[in-house]
């Protein structure tokens, strides 16, 4: 009976991320980079020690940056023009005692015994190419929906299946809405 009541409560209160930390840093900015639309992001977490402890305790973390470019419409739903995903896998190699991060932009794995140094080189100076400017037109308003998620990755399948009510999110997901049009000075061709 108690289990049934517990389940009832669980139904009423869906499992949300009990986030350890929050993203910090400057707000993302859109810019034109090499003839395309780019996103500048200075990303960090509020408690790096906690993050470090997680990594040292065997966790692999994945930063997922999802950017969807939409054309805003008044009466109809916004039109999706493009969508990009960037995934940064961060983990600690207990053998080499180094932090390793896969960089989706270069395709390389960056290693550093110092996590802060590694993060400074990567997340704190992200310049992400989103799409070509050709898809944009004058007199139109556009929107970039940016969603940042830092979650556990490479969880052994048996554990992944077992931990049904465990939130994989390490940091509370962050969502940004960035509006622009080509009339802005920053985006003028």
């Amino acid at each position, binding site marked *: 009976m108690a289990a049934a009541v517990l389940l009832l409560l669980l139904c009423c209160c869906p499992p949300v991320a009990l986030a350890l930390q929050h993203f910090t840093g400057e707000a993302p900015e859109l810019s034109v980079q090499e003839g395309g639309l780019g996103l500048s992001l200075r990303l960090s977490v509020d408690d790096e020690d906690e993050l470090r402890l997680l990594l040292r305790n065997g966790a692999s973390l994945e930063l997922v940056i999802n950017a969807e470019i939409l054309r805003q419409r008044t009466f109809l739903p916004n039109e999706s023009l493009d969508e990009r995903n960037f995934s940064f896998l961060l983990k600690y190699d*207990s*053998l080499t005692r180094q932090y390793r991060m896969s960089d989706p932009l270069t395709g390389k794995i960056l290693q550093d015994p110092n996590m802060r140094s590694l993060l400074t080189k990567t997340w704190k100076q992200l310049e992400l190419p989103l799409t070509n400017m050709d898809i944009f037109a004058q007199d139109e308003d556009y929107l970039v929906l940016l969603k940042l998620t830092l979650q556990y990755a490479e969880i052994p399948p048996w554990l992944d299946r077992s931990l*049904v009510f465990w*939130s994989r999110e390490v940091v509370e997901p962050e969502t940004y809405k960035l509006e622009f049009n080509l009339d802005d000075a920053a985006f003028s061709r």
Partner: protein
Amino acid sequence: MPLFPGERTQPVAKGRSRTAVAGSGHAPESNILTGTASLVKSQAQRSLDRKKRRREFFWAAMGLLLVLVLLFVQIQYFSSSSIFFALFFFNSVLLLGILFVVLRNAMKLLLERRRRIIGSRLRTRLVLAISAMTLIPCLVMFLVTAQFVKISIDFWFQNQVESTVETSLEMTRRTYESTAARLRSQAGFCLAEIEARDYGWGGVSMDAFLERKRQEYDLALVGTLDSGQVERNWQPEAGIGNAWQEAKNNLDWERLRRDGFLFAPGYGAQSDFMFGVLSVGSGRIGYLMLVEDMGEGFWSKLEEISAGTQEYKLLRTLRRELKATLYLTLTVLTALIALATIWFAFRVGKELTAPITTLVNATERMAEGDTSVRIEDTSSDEFAVLVKAFNRMAAEIGQSRQELTDTNALLGQQNLVLDQQRRYVETVLDNIAAGVLSFDAEWHITTANKAACEFIGLKLETAIGRNINTFLTKAQSRQTRKVGLKLLRRPGSHLQHQLVFTHDGEDRHLLATSVGLPSPEGKFQGGVVVFEDVTEMEKMQRMAAWREVARRIAHEIKNPLTPIKLSAQRLEKKFSAEVSDPVFQQSTQLIVRQVELLQSMVQEFSTFAKLPEVRLRRGKIAPVLQESVDMFRNSHANIIWSLDLDPNLPDLEMDGIALQRAFLNILTNAAEAFNFMESKTDMKAEAGMEAGGTLRPQARMEIKTDAEPAQESKPGRQNPAVRVRAVYDPETRMLRIDFIDNGPGLNDDERKRMFEPYFSRKKGGTGLGLTIVRSIITEHRGYVRALPNEADDSGTVISVELPTI
């Protein structure tokens, strides 16, 4: 199909239960009626059920919609695994559905128990028993498993395991680092020697040196790279090339230049390698590379150890969540099993108790008298056998009941007949003049009719159960004791004896015929006494005897009287002149007078003996009375005569002459009662009707008064009066004629005996006048009684009652 003729079996309510009760009512007619009623009821019930199902469906649909909305919200905003949460919600809904069903069943059962519905207690026991049978082991299993999970997970993260893992990692790390350190030092030595020998970087002259160093350090390769990271002095073994290209791509050259030395793993097809790269002149000159063959799968093994350690650490970090998940899963499973078990228990309880409940209901209905009840059962298990046995029993009881009813009806009819016969016999007994009385062996009265009660002077209500000896006089008791003794000796004998009962001062002579009632064994067990009132019969017999006496006296005395009288007259006539003695004349005259008196008496005797038979004809009484009274009004003017006639006097069957003779006798007696007549009143009453219907004297009758001379002081003497009153009583249909005088009156004894022959208080009276009156009135089926005149304080009332039919 009816089981018995005239009986209708009604299949009713093939409902949710496999067993249904059929039939109701006691008689076939009532079966049909109640059957229709129950059909109506079942339709109403079905309608209610349909509404209920619709309502439940509505709420279920609403619940499902809510679940879908929640599911959408969950998936849209909170999901990490949509399938999981979909399944989770589906299971939750299922669980909640089962929980709802279980709670609903429990509430229903609770309510049924409170309402004391048949079968609810048994169902409760079954539910509790089945639930307990499953829940207790389930709970035990849950606790054991939970403990097992706790112990197991805690066991995984024991310090010993953890230290082992950490040690293995440390050992691996040391191997790795020592290899790297060795490569680094070897690279340093090698570079120092190259610098000492002043080789040109990447020149051919270095090949032999590098080959020698490779052999000296037992390495797979010792080579150089120029500042552009192009391989020089490069004589790799097979398999190194591909591994190096992969490691070269991942190598952080900038860091290498900064740090001076880096090592990188290499994965070969046959063997793994460790590449140690030393930057020379911060990479401006080139790079010295030493490659050590680590053997097949070396890096994989190291990484496995590392990955295993990492996984172990991750697991340790998440062990609380893992435990919670396992506990939750276990709890959910246990709850599911528990709820499913309880639901199953309810279901089984219902299945098991439904036929029992039906049987109990059917039995109760049968106990209430509905023998047409039947149970339908489509199963083939033991209940079906029970149901068949019940139906067979019901049919047999119904048949027996029908037979009993028929027998009862027959007995009722017979009782009715017997009751009618008994009433008839009672009516006969109550209306016969004879008294019938029965008694038991203890001489207690068991039955008595009205006449018997009247004879013995008891009321019917008090007579029953009373001992006979309690109301008998000593003399009567002596008589009955003798009779009783005879009956005891011979219970079947018939005995007759006479009893005299005095009732209201009047003796009643009863002829009692006693019959004993013997038992089949011949023992005395009571008897029956039949009383016959022989008082009147005795009187009649006495009257007849007296008439015979009167006739003989008249006959014997009458003949010599005439010669005696004539002789006396002759003597007087012949010798009166010769005999001067007045005694002679007085004597002869006395003889003549006495003879005349005797002749008168003889005449009266003769009249009494030869009273003509009355001839009844329809006639009116008023003229007879009027003529009689007028006759006396003229002859007895000193008496006030009055006649009150009811104007509605009906005609009656009568003999006018006989009645007038009777009335004249009564009136004569009344007149003589006043003693106003100086001498004996010779009342020559002549009776007879002329042809014209008028009263015609036929005979001369001398009536002597029976009454004593009245006292001077009595009020009657002052104003002597005789009143004749005739009234008709419609209720009894009797004509009553009262002759009321205010004379001196009579005492009780005189009144009792005044109608007896030859009873006279008057000297020389024959005592036949009122006897003749009684004889005439009796022949008219009437009654004559003497009563005191209570209205005038003295006098007598002679009351004559004559029937008008």
